[in-house]
């Protein structure tokens, strides 16, 4: 037989660790005959699978027996080399395309996915029906388990205030939570919580109207749903990239609104206040006062006073809106007083622990 059809070979039969050393004889077509003093085997070339290349050798597996290994020298006769299965390097897809093309393709697909991923909340959020958001919100936050303060007078005052900044037929749900935090939040499902700590800080009902209007703005502009989707997406993305599930942080506390959303909510609030003849000057002062004494925290849904546009710029916008207009008080002294004392007078309300 010609030399070009014969090559030294080693093989393991997969049943014992004994190494068989001999020759591989190629019939010039599809058959390889392995011959040694200890083992004779005939193998169809089409049944060989490339395993790896290592230190001047090529290792092949055999689809007929997973345990079998054939080891041939890397410098094979050209004809046989062409008849054997080709090398695999990076994996089937990358090998098929070539490293350069595969990199460009993967990068393109990834960039597209990322772009879709980061913009999806903005266009998807407002398209999710309000009723869905409401059920989702109810499942997520529920009724706060008797931590909302109620008195007949206080409830009436809050309803009156809400009506001024939320003219829609179906009102958002707002409540004063029995917590000393100086904060206010818009939660999934169109629920607004103003913490009693913030109510106590307010000196006039106009100040509260500014805060309430802002939160209503978040609900009406669908910012809550957008933020919820973004947060959910980030959780999934992070858990895909970083496999440590312990690192994955999910929580409403980590949710935040964009600066644009904050500005929109402010604009909404000012527009409603002007419509209802509420002075925005109070709100301006309130923001300045709060930002002066509250530590700036990370932007967070629950960090009400923190996540908003620069306090100076913001108060300015409210003052400008007030220029050249006259306003009537939004609530009477008694009504404002009822809001202030609501949590104190509600005897069976429970304390809401800080949720941040």
């Amino acid at each position: 037989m010609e030399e070009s059809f014969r090559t030294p070979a080693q093989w393991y039969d997969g049943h014992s660790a004994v190494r068989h050393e001999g020759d591989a004889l190629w019939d010039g077509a599809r058959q390889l005959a392995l011959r040694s003093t200890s083992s004779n085997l005939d193998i169809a070339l089409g049944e060989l699978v490339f395993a790896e290349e290592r230190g001047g050798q090529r290792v092949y597996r055999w689809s007929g027996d997973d345990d079998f290994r054939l080891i041939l020298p890397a410098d094979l006769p050209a004809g046989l080399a062409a008849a054997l299965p080709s090398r695999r390097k990076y994996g089937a897809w990358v090998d098929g395309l070539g490293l350069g093309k595969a990199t460009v393709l993967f990068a393109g697909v990834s960039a597209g996915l990322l772009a879709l991923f980061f913009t999806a909340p903005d266009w998807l959020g407002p398209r999710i029906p309000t009723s869905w958001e409401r059920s989702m919100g109810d499942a997520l936050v529920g009724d706060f388990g008797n931590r909302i303060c109620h008195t007949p007078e206080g409830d009436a005052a809050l309803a009156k205030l809400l009506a001024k900044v939320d003219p829609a037929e179906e009102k958002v749900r707002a409540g004063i939570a029995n917590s000393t935090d100086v904060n206010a939040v818009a939660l999934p499902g169109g629920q607004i919580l103003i913490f009693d700590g913030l109510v106590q800080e307010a000196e006039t009902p106009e100040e509260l109207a500014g805060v309430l209007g802002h939160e209503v703005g978040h609900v009406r502009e669908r910012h809550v749903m957008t933020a919820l989707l973004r947060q959910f997406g980030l959780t999934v993305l992070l858990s895909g990239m970083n496999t440590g599930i312990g690192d994955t942080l999910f929580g409403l506390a980590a949710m935040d609104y964009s600066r644009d959303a904050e500005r929109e909510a402010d604009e909404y609030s000012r527009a409603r206040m002007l419509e209802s003849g509420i002075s925005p000057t109070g709100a301006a002062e309130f923001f300045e006062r709060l930002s002066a004494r509250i530590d700036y925290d990370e932007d967070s849904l629950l960090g009400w006073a923190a996540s908003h546009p620069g306090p100076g710029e913001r108060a300015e916008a409210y003052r400008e809106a007030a220029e050249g207009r006259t306003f009537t008080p939004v609530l009477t002294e008694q009504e404002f007083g009822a809001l202030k004392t609501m949590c104190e007078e509600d005897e069976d309300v429970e304390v809401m622990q800080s949720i941040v």
Partner: protein
Amino acid sequence: MADIKEKANNAFRFDGNWQDFAKIAFPNLLLTIVTLGIYRFWATTRERQYLWSHTSFVDERLEWTGEGRELFFGFLIVAIILGIPFVILQFIASGMIFRGMQDYVLVMGIILFLASWYLSGVARFRAMRYRLSRTRWRGIRGGSDNPGFVYGWSYFWRWLVGILPVGLLIPWTMTSLWNERWREMSFGPYQVESDAEPAPIYKRFLLFYVPLLLLIPMGIAFQSADLEGGAGAVVAISAIVLVLFIYFGMPLLSVAFYAKFFREAVHTMRWGDVEFSFRARTSDWIVLYLVDFLLISATFGLAYIFIPYRHWKFYVEHMHAEGEIDLDAMTQSQTATARHGEGLLDAFDMGAI
């Protein structure tokens, strides 16, 4: 064919070099980035193929037969059976907090913590089983028929018992778990034997408690209530020594302890008629970690991709084996093979060998 008896002395060799490894590691890094991390399963596989095939035992190279898609599916399975419930639980937890049920959330958190403790034991076991079942030498592979769920409980309670008496039983925890895990493993027809004892490693372990003695003079000084004078100086000096120990002493001691533990544990292992030893001293480990640190800081983290190479080389070069192998009697492993990779281990972020 007659019995072939081979002298297996200084049996492990590594003949890879970092330049060749770089040709694998850099494209891996590139592909991992452009696929948003998904390629990392194939990347790991390619790295292992290189490391295994450049490692020889006696007269034949090892072969890594694991595949990227196994690791990928393992990851997907874990993501589905653990990840999704985890995300849902997060939602439930925030809902419960809003409803004022903090106590239940705390209980839920504790249950999750205990469950992940148990699962991390299972994960270690299964990763070892997977790696052995994908390692071939002369066509023969290893493995285990044990799925590792019982080992998870052992891991759970032995660590609990080890830690409770101010950590004093940790050496026992480590050696007994090492034995339990390895005794379930086999390669070819031979079960691995392992008889690691805690006694030889206790001396080093007790060094961790030496700084606690400093609390005695500190306590006496506080008792004297004269912090202006000499007692204050005692407190200050003790505190400084304690801080120095925490930052420098503890890491060094941990390395020294682990070096001793690893030598002892490997030394008690047998496989057929082959006995093993691991000869890295504390100073070798310190050099390993120090060079890791210097390389990574000098390259702003890029050298991180060479860490698997450096560590594998370290293990192989310090591993020794002596004894005889009867190649005719060395038949194929009959253990079941796990179909998917190290998903669980991956999920708990434990990459150690």
